[in-house]
């Protein structure tokens, strides 16, 4: 491991294979030599962390599936059996349960990193889109998975979310019946949800590959947001510099993750989901998992059913237009005095929405939720286009190496 040269070691078997299937050349190119900006900060750790959590989710999920039964009469008890009787079943389940929360935490940080440093700007628009596709697939997967233990919140969450589609004019009802495979959320629904919950993570793996192809085509953005291709001194090989940094970050992350798994495994959960599903009784409060709360708040802020559903989906889809809504040539918020403030306000707005999503939608929380929803869209539709037109950015450094020489920090 003490190699300083980045040439792969000569090895007969490796060469024999590589001549026929250049997998080693490929890996060497993308994971060792891959030129990376030398100034990446810790916010750049979250992409690889997301990838690792994805692997953890797939592994823990496959082993859970060996003991899970997708039938309305057995699903709840099979999960309880995993918790009580299956060797280390409790560990597998807590890893998977908390892993979902960790996955969203990591990916949300990853996305906000992109928002702050303008990683969605040319030439990374498709990279950004692929990231959003991953986010949508993740939400779908998490929703489907949450239904599987067949507790009260599983059942009623599934009912409310599938009913969103009934807002579609004309074809809404037939679509919902089709999604259910019956006239309510029932056994056919549970079966297909399990099938899809198993499938989607592998689709995510595929999109992550494309995400990485797009990333490696133009390379990583960096905290200064300037192009690093011009100056060869601005880049360093990925290995060992960033492999080490990523591994260090992983260690810190795992401490936090394990902290939840072992000491507060139900911290993110809802106690009602330990009550078996009852199709004839709605729990007094239906709340989604924390990572969906901001979107849920947007849904509930709009008094009209169809408009609420459109606003909720629109809140995600508007992110696809971000590269055009924000037309500023400067990527990094470091050099954009006004955008930088907007970024923090927007982040606060998302947190406020998340808080509202967990409250009863009446009185002050409802009002605050409405204002926060309005601001969410105002940010994208009005503020960003205007600011990117009229803001005067600070001068950009020529290369990563230059600002170090003539420092003038604000």
């Amino acid at each position, binding site marked *: 491991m003490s190699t300083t040269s980045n040439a792969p070691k000569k090895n007969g078997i490796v060469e024999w294979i590589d001549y026929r299937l250049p997998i080693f050349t490929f890996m060497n190119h993308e994971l060792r030599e891959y030129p990376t900006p030398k100034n990446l900060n810790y916010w750049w750790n979250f992409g690889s962390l997301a990838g690792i959590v994805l692997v953890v989710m797939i592994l823990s999920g496959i082993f859970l599936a060996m003991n899970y039964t997708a039938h309305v009469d057995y699903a709840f008890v099979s999960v309880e059996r995993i918790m009580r009787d299956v060797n280390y079943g409790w560990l597998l389940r807590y890893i998977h349960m908390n892993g979902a929360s960790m996955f969203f935490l990591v990916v949300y940080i990853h996305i906000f990193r992109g928002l702050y440093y303008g990683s969605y700007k040319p030439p990374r628009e498709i990279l950004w889109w692929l990231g959003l596709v991953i986010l949508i697939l993740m939400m779908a997967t998490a929703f489907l998975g949450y239904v599987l233990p067949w507790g009260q919140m599983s059942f009623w969450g599934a009912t409310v979310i599938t009913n969103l589609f009934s807002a579609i004019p004309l074809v809404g009802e037939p679509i919902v019946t089709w999604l259910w495979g019956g006239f309510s959320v029932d056994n*056919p629904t549970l079966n297909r949800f399990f099938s899809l919950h198993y499938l989607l993570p592998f689709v995510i793996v595929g999109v992550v590959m494309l995400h990485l192809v797009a990333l490696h085509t133009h390379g990583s953005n960096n905290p200064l947001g300037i192009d690093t291709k011009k100056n060869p001194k601005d880049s360093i090989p990925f290995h060992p510099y960033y492999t080490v940094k990523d591994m260090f970050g992983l260690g810190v992350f795992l401490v936090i993750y394990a902290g939840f798994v072992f000491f507060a495994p139900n911290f993110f959960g809802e106690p009602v989901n330990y009550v078996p599903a009852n199709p004839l009784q709605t729990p007094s409060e239906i709340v989604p998992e924390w990572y969906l709360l901001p979107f849920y708040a947007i849904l509930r802020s*709009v008094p009209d059913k169809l408009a609420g559903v459109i606003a909720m989906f629109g809140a995600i889809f508007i992110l696809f237009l971000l590269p055009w809504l924000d037309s500023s040539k400067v990527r990094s918020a470091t050099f954009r005095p006004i955008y930088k403030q907007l970024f923090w306000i927007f982040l606060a707005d998302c947190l406020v929405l998340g808080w509202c999503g967990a409250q009863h939608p009446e009185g002050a929380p409802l009002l605050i939720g409405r204002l926060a929803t309005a601001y969410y869209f105002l940010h994208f539709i009005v503020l960003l286009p205007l600011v990117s037109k009229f803001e005067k950015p600070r001068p950009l450094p020529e290369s990563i190496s230059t600002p170090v020489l003539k420092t003038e920090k604000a």
Partner: protein
Amino acid sequence: MSESAHASATHGHPGHGEGETRRDFLALAATAFAGAGAACALWPFIDSMNPAADTLALSTTDVDISPIAEGMRVTVKWRGRPVFIDHRTKKQIDEARAVNISELRDPAKDEDRAQKAEWLVMVGVCTHLGCIPLGQKQGDPTGDFGGWFCPCHGSHYDTSGRIRKGPAPLNLPVPPYKFLTDTSVSIG
């Protein structure tokens, strides 16, 4: 597709326009045919997700309503979802019938919603996002209009099950039902 056909056609007959259109046509026709075929082949897969024959077969429920006293509300299960049977009081019926229809979000006369005025039969699923409204049990909140209240996002229904306030767009639906005798209803 048409572009590659074009390219090979120009190769085959330099300077000839005729072969080009013929090949373009064949290529287009073949593609359209294959596309339509693929779309048809997709249908069985999509339709397999619709309710199966046995699910459809479970679709009537008979209820004995003789034990339901006036003012009492009872929930039965039909097609996996709750059906509310409400033995309404005179006051509730009068309230439901006194409403000015044109002010309603989903205008419907109470007379059209109940085959017999004292018996209201409805699917007890909120038309917003599918929660079960409260009001069936003694002590449940019944909302601002004395009917039902959906706790999920705050929809209020009146004593005819019509939406009066909150995000739900429609009245609680009336399922197909008929009175087999004076004390027995068949739902579905």
